């Protein structure tokens, strides 16, 4: 009987030991996989604001995750200090003038931190060192870089002509965008007003990227300004359309606001067309295509507004008299 009990004890002991060993092995495997016990070193950086950062945010180097944000502190002097925990095995790759900056993988999506190696001639970065944080160039900044003053007007005109040719190419992104926009507007309802606005945003983003090519041009600068204001309007417009899709007649106030925004957008596109009209006759035509699509949205929104009981009456259609120039009179006393 005593031998039987001893056997059972031994078996239970082995069972418990094996179970515990397995658990320890799993923990070890996971920790090795996730660099839990890997040797790490610390770096600091001070961005102007902690708005785009969070604890555990990945830090990438050449596309590889080399560490994470350990903690974020607001210093006594009001500055932000972020502590990075980076894997020691990547330490030799980072040099004294390494820079850290926020990048976005696509136009939308989460932002990640990317660290650059710095120049190879410089010594390897020391642990606990504060590295420089660089703000990624935004579209607005890029547009501001388009400097005024044209020394050679011929160069500008040639560039614009090339641009016009590219825009007129049926396979160009811009043309395809306009086609998509038109397709959506064929069957426009509350749900796909949002889609249309997103398409418009894409078109304008394309236009913005094109203006980067217009180097040292005053016209380019003016166009950029117009597009920037248009983008600002669109950024207001997007959340509005999402709400509009979700809500019913309660969103009447928002429709009114949406109409105002679409009007503003339409005027902004007019400015773009007007700015370009003196240089190439083709470009305003393209801007006009966008404007026509907007006019369709306006009509549909106004009819929606009219059908929802509380809305205002749709505005009367414009007559042909609007195409006649008003008189220019000499009224000097």
């Amino acid at each position, binding site marked *: 009987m005593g031998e039987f009990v001893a056997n059972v004890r031994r078996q239970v002991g082995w069972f418990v030991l094996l179970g515990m060993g397995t658990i320890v092995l799993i923990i070890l495997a996971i920790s090795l996989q996730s660099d839990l016990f890997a040797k790490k070193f610390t770096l600091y950086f001070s961005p102007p604001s902690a708005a785009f950062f969070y604890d555990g945010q990945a830090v990438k180097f050449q596309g590889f995750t080399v560490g994470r944000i350990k903690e974020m502190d607001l210093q006594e002097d009001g500055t932000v200090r972020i502590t990075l925990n980076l894997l020691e095995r990547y330490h030799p790759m980072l040099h004294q003038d390494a820079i850290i900056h926020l990048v976005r993988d696509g136009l939308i999506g989460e932002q990640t931190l990317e660290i650059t190696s710095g120049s190879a001639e410089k010594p390897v970065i020391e642990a606990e060192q504060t590295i420089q944080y660089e703000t990624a160039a935004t579209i607005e900044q890029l547009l501001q870089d388009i400097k005024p003053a044209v020394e050679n007007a011929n160069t500008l005109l040639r560039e614009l002509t090339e641009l016009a040719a590219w825009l007129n190419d049926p396979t160009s992104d811009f043309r395809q965008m306009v086609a998509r926009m038109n397709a959506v507007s064929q069957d426009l309802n509350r749900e796909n007003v949002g889609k249309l606005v997103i398409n418009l945003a894409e078109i304008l983003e394309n236009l913005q990227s094109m203006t980067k090519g217009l180097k040292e041009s005053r016209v380019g600068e003016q166009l950029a300004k117009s597009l920037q204001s248009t983008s600002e309007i669109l950024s207001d417009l997007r959340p509005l359309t999402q709400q509009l899709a979700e809500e019913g007649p309660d969103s009447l106030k928002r429709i009114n606001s949406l109409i105002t925004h679409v009007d503003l957008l339409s005027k902004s596109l007019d400015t773009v067309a007007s700015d370009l*009209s003196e240089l190439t006759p083709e470009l305003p035509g393209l801007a006009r295509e966008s404007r026509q699509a907007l006019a369709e949205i306006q009509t549909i929104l106004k009819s929606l507004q009219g059908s929802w009981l509380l809305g205002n009456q749709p505005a009367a259609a414009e007559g042909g*008299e609007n*195409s006649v*120039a008003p008189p220019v009179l000499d009224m*000097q006393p």
Partner: protein
Amino acid sequence: MKHLHSCCSKWLLTLLCVSMLGSCGGKSSHKTPEPENPYILQANTHIHNGLAAMQKERWQSAESSFARALVSSQLADDINLVSRSWYNLAVIRSALNNNTGAEEAYGRVLELADRHRDSLMQMRAQIALALIQEREGHLPETFDIQQLPASLFQAGNWPADIRLQAARLAQRLQHSALAQQAYLTITQTKGSDRNLLKMKAEAHMGLALLARSESRFEQAWAEAEKALGYCRVVGAPRLTAHALLLQGQLGIANARERKDRLERALSIYVALEDTAGQKQTLAELIKLNSPESTPALQLRLQQLEDKLGKENEKPESFSIMGED
């Protein structure tokens, strides 16, 4: 009471559902895209651009846009658009002081309007042409403003721009009663269109000029004030400067207020590079200012007169407006 509330809400809900279904049903059918004449689209774009350029007094740009609109409308063979394009071109040529070109363009409008029985364009072009001829001092002796339809000077169906031009013509031809009547009809026109508001401002300015010529200075001040109100809404700096200059010229206000108006007018004329306006305002300021501050103003006036003298030596100069 509760029962009444629930009944009302049920009714409202039903009505709401029906209207929503109606609106959705209306939109469910697929629109088939209608083919559009690209030349008409192009012409409209150019006209739109020309009108936008006009608002900012970019006359050269407006002229090139309207010239392109004319070509596009000719390619589209749209008579209405061709006629309007010629008219727009004539307005711009007149603003650019190219009176020969403007008269030629108005002639084309009259020809087309006569051939296609477009009475509105005919009247528009006829009055605009008479205004140019009167300004140039070669208005035909056979022209008599009384021959124009009386409804032009009364509340009729004529567009505001035609009535405004008729009023201005009557004013220049010393038919004050007719001019006043026509200006008043414009000020009473309802609407919030930018061009209409600008024309209302011009009508008030016309009334102010009429009142001043008849020594009704208080009314002149009030009308100029109304013109300024509209100018602030639509943004018409040149007309603003004219109205301020007129107020500065009126002796009914105290010297301080007149000086303020004149200085404001002068700043606008300087910004617009309108030398004629600057000269007139400076002359008024010299009259108004104390003797110790006058030499500086006189020196400025002398410089302007020298500049104007040089400009007058050039063959074509703008009398009404500045360049782009």
